[in-house]
């Protein structure tokens, strides 16, 4: 009964919803990146690496310039750079996309770790370099409950939702989006209509760099204001799962990310509940909740998702 009470208390706590949002935000960005890349037909498991590099660059440039937004901008640029490598290998050279992705993750981990000492003078982690201020919406904060959730949030959270709306519009309402979807489903058909298959795929992959770079920037200068080696902590892979779970659709990916954010917020909240008395060593088990939940959802409720038909298949003209 105490457990039920604790669960109930979690759900009526506005801060639970706020933490859900902040936990979901990096996943939304990164899974969005996955959507862009994969609907044009390029599997991108490098998200984890792009995030990490983005987190690093944003801290680096914030530290150099003192302006967090320059840092965020440079995270996007670095995301583009790594994504370009992925695009180059997988589109131009028709490489195995999964392997290229794992290679880029390694390179990102290596490069960020490697550069710490020469740049910051010490390995491992940087000091606090500055942070994107939270956005306070006057008036909103005074509304009960809602105010506690939305009253004061990182602008990244709003950006994430704006990005979802923008992406939905771009993918489903514009000419470019139509072409992106056609290239991921049947590149040959698109090619015969004079659509530049390679160009569109480059666009998709580069955009995934933009979003995953932002995800990384959020983790560092958006949330904690410093960089720590491997701080992406596997979120790129979770975002990948969220993208598949969300059926390669920006809105779906967002919902899946929110589900994930909610379950990890729930796990944290349950761990912190004063109603549940468990020994300290049992607490790590709470962290399994999001993963178990995802498996149940993937297996039970979603089943087969529509994978873009040409996803992962390099497009090669015959002559």
């Amino acid at each position, binding site marked *: 009964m105490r457990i039920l009470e604790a669960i109930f208390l979690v759900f009526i*706590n506005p*801060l*639970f919803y*706020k*933490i859900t949002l*902040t*936990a979901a935000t*990096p996943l939304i960005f990164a899974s969005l990146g996955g959507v862009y890349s994969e609907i044009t037909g390029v599997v991108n498991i490098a998200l984890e690496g792009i995030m990490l590099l983005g987190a690093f660059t944003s801290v680096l440039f914030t530290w150099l310039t003192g302006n967090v937004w320059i840092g965020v901008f440079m995270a996007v640029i670095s995301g583009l750079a790594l994504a370009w490598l992925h695009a180059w290998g997988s589109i131009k050279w028709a490489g195995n996309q999964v392997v290229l992705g794992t290679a880029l993750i390694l390179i990102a981990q290596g490069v960020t770790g490697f550069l*710490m000492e020469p740049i910051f003078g*010490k*390995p*491992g*982690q940087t*000091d*606090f370099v500055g*942070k994107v201020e*939270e956005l306070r919406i006057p008036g909103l904060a005074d509304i009960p409950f809602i105010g506690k959730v939305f009253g*004061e949030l990182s602008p990244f959270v709003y950006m994430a939702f704006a990005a979802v709306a923008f992406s939905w519009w771009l993918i489903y309402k514009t000419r470019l989006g139509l072409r992106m979807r056609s290239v991921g489903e049947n590149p040959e058909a698109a090619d015969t209509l004079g659509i530049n298959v390679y160009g569109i795929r480059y666009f998709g992959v580069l955009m995934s760099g933009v979003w995953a770079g932002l995800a990384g920037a959020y*983790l560092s200068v958006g*949330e*904690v*204001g*410093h960089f*720590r*080696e*491997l*701080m992406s*902590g596997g979120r790129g892979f979770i975002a990948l799962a969220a993208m598949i779970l969300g059926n390669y659709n920006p809105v779906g990916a967002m919902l899946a990310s929110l589900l994930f954010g909610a379950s*990890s*917020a729930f796990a*944290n*909240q349950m*761990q*912190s*509940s*004063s109603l549940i008395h468990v020994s*300290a*060593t049992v*607490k*790590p088990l709470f*962290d399994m909740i999001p993963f178990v939940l995802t498996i149940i959802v993937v297996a039970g409720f979603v089943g087969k998702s529509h994978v873009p038909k040409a996803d992962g298949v390099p497009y090669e003209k015959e002559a």
Partner: protein
Amino acid sequence: MKKVFVVLLAMLFVVSAFSFKAIMVTDTGGLGDKSFNDGTWAGIVRAAKELGVESKVIQSYEQADYISNLSKAAEEVQKEPDGGIVYAVGFMMTDALFQVAQQYPDVYFAGIDIAPPTENVPPNVVTFLFKEQESAFLVGYVAAATTRVGKVGFIGGIPIPPVERFRYGFETGVKVYNDLHGTNVTIIKGYTNHFSDPKKGKDLALSQFAEGVDIIFHASGACGNGVIEAAKEKMVSLVGSEDLSKIIEYAFENGGIFAMGVDVDQDYMAPGVVLASAMKGVDTASYMGVMWAYNGEWEPGVHVLGLAEDGVRMSPMKYTKGLVSNRTLAELEYLVTLIKEGTLVIPDTEESLNSFRTPKIEFPF
């Protein structure tokens, strides 16, 4: 150009003049953990500089590296006519250290955070352990004295022994305060299961704040940066400014949201928001080890460093001292004396924590 060359040559000469080497092998956490790896290295570097000897570090990539890296370091040291010392850092290297040390009896080995698995320690090995619980006891006492809601939090990384000792101490500090002052401060405990994901630390800290705590003590490596950030965010939002004097002014009047740091003096990471840090003098230990080895004053065996040995302490509360009443400060000072004397023993295991009863303490004022 020529000058540089001469200088370089001279340096080379100088370096080779002292044929003693101090080599440190990190655990997989590596340098930059702002904890035992960094601390050890700082101490070694300091000693090496003073002695004018060479110091080196090998960072381990994975657990299977420990034995080979320690062996490598030992081989390297063996080559030096005057020998040297090999440091194994982190409790994860316990088994590896003792296996390798047996193979190289003429090389000095030192372990940080390492408890020997057997009673008899080989003569070429010293290990340093810390009474983390003692410094954590002090911050726990401060937390209990400062909280305005009667609820404080603890966030650990992975529940490994040093982390757990911090928790035992923290819990004891709160308990002792409660018993002495008749308060009922409670503790919420959580773990990030990680040492290098600051965002995770921040999320968990926010969850604890959502449960109503106003002070969180963390012992979670880099995750703790997120904990401190969460507290800072909350506090700045309450105060409406990042300015230290405003924060202090606000906190003095209304209390606030605080974090407590670990391992090193983390007060500077968010001045005014980090109430105090439970420090661990890893650098002192590693410095000592090098000196012993160099001077031949080797004292093999386990050295457990606590308040009395100056191995652990509480940060001087550079920014926040004003938030703690003079009486509390005086109490703390007295408690430190009791601990140093051995009158007050802070539990260092789960069992002793459970059976811990606050002794009769009469403050002399």
